[in-house]
């Protein structure tokens, strides 16, 4: 049959980031008259479900797959199987390993996202950056790559030696009070913040994996009355997150554009089905960069940023 169909496979279906990605893809697919089936892992790191989803897409005769991989290198054989079956596979948000395992990657540079907030935090503190006390609120003990890239990006931006850039927790910079995991939600954010505060109550910079974790950390700080003298930075750029920047809960956040990734991906599959053409990478990079922007109302010299008003216009949910 000649109707075009596409698959969207995300890491989970519980993170608003992926929900918005799916909404963006669905809207674009409807506009172009493409059938879209979407799949997701049950939890972060649920690799098996993603493999099963790829197999289902092949069995279903789809034309292309948009994939945010949980396990970027393990997924490669399954992706290869799909490509061998004539499907276009596009990695969204997270590059595969090696990156050319997919036909194209539409992604944000997570390391860059981290680096932006790191630089901003360092610049905001000025001279105090040398004796800052930093809490690192990460994603999970399994150290998934997004978490590691953002974390290491932040440290690089802040001017901390990251040692092995593939894992967090191996630094010896005394400014790092500690790492704790949050599962990327408010509850985990609050608990992790409390734990680190018990360790050192004088923490004054908080890196968070995403904005819900930041909101949780803020609640913990508020409960001991320190919400106004701690700098919280985060990554994502969801609408509640940007609103929290505007309200002063978060100092700055790096905004990503999942809707853009998704709609670009759908367009690419439509073109592939029509004439077999593949999308091109951004100049100088191995992937199509959908961009990242620092959102803050307190811009600093040397770091490009947009204000929360503009951030609200661009935010994704």
């Amino acid at each position, binding site marked *: 049959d000649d109707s075009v169909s596409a698959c969207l496979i995300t890491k989970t*279906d*519980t*993170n*608003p980031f992926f*929900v918005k990605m799916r909404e963006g893809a669905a809207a674009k697919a409807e506009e172009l008259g493409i059938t879209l089936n979407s799949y997701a892992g049950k*939890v972060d790191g649920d690799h098996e479900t993603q493999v099963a989803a790829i197999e289902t897409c092949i069995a279903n005769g789809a034309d292309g797959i948009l994939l945010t991989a949980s396990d970027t290198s393990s997924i490669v054989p399954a992706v290869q199987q799909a490509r061998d079956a004539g499907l276009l596979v596009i990695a969204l948000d997270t590059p595969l390993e090696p990156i050319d395992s997919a036909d194209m990657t539409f992604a944000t540079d997570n390391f860059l996202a981290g680096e932006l907030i790191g630089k901003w935090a360092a610049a905001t503190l000025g001279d105090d950056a040398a004796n800052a006390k930093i809490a690192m609120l*990460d994603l999970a*003990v399994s150290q998934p790559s997004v978490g590691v890239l953002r974390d290491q990006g932040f440290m690089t931006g802040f001017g901390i030696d990251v040692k092995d850039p593939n894992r967090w*927790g191996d630094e010896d910079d005394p400014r790092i009070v*500690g*790492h*704790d*995991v949050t*599962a*990327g*939600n*408010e*509850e985990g*954010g*609050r*608990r992790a913040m*409390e*734990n*680190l505060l*018990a*360790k050192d*109550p004088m923490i004054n910079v908080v890196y968070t994996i995403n904005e*819900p974790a930041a*909101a*949780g950390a*803020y*609640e913990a700080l*508020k*409960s*001991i009355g320190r919400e106004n003298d701690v700098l919280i930075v985060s990554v994502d750029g969801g609408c*509640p997150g940007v*609103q*929290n920047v505007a*309200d002063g*809960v978060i100092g700055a956040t790096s905004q990503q554009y999942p809707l853009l990734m998704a709609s670009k991906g759908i367009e690419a599959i439509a073109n592939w089905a029509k004439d077999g053409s593949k999308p091109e990478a951004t100049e100088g990079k191995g992937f199509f960069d959908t961009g990242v922007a620092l959102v803050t109302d307190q811009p600093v010299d040397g770091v490009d940023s947009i204000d929360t008003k503009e951030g609200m216009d661009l935010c994704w*949910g």
Partner: protein
Amino acid sequence: MSGPDNYEAASADAANEIASFDTGKKGIVSRFHHALHTTPALVPLIVLLASIAIFGVLLGTRFFSPFALTLILQQVQIVGIVAAAQSLVILTAGIDLSVGAIAVISSVVMGQFSFRYGVPVEVAIVCGLAFGTMIGAVNGWLIAVMKLPPFIVTLGMWQIVLAANFLYSANETIRSQDIAEQAPMLQLMGAKFNVGGAVFTFGVVFMLVLVLVLAYVLKHTAWGRHVYAVGDDPEAAALSGVNVKKTLISVYALAGLICAFAGWALIGRIGSVSPTSGQLLNIESITAVVIGGISLFGGRGSILGTFFGALIVGVFTLGLRLLGADAQWTFLLIGALIIAAVAVDQWIRKVAA
């Protein structure tokens, strides 16, 4: 035609004494043994106090500060409330894997009813509590009337409720600042007060009161005795006059209600209404219950034990973080300490037997 064989008549002037044994070592030790036998929650309490003492020695005032100690209470409040519900269920030889999902969807209902439909916040809270109770009642009905295994029913319900939660809330968080402005009552359980330097929240108080009330109900009311009887041997309970179905349905419904309260307390704790929280509550609550000494086969144990079980995990977690263990090592050590806590428990019981 035939009377009793006359030899039986010889028992007529039977003596009525009972074996009175020279108990030997009297005093403290024997009284302690007796206390252990009559108060099963004593063992987890001992483990708890021992672990507090050890961390206190290792960490000094960093651990023994009012801040750290009340922090533990605040960190365990949600698990503590949910574990109370889980205790009831496990006492009936059941299990409830849907506790976390019920707590979260109840909090989402409270939030969305207030914000999406503009329902007055008090009404929204009542709706959330009712919704949680209803899910619990459905669990109970499937288990008691349809005779399905609790594990499967609540496993299915967990998936259903969690998926419904994400679909209904569209994964959207209601921000703390908005709640504080428009419906502060949702955050009531997070309200703080000071008692001599220590900070308590209403949520913590709710947990403490809940545990005491349930301990009373289980020990001193007919319903409580029936819960134990049903868990002990449902067939014997039915034969001896317990309405097993009614008891089971009421237990699961009450568990649902308590979980809904946990959902309310969750809003107080994290400030916002977030559909992604509470995902580990089922495993955490079961852990607390089992460390607290309630048998997964039902009928044995006390709810105070569960409370101490939850605190033991809380003490370990914070203590290890303060000692500087990193996240992965903490995870590993907590695993080891869970086993160790139960081993110590078993050892104390054995020595005391």
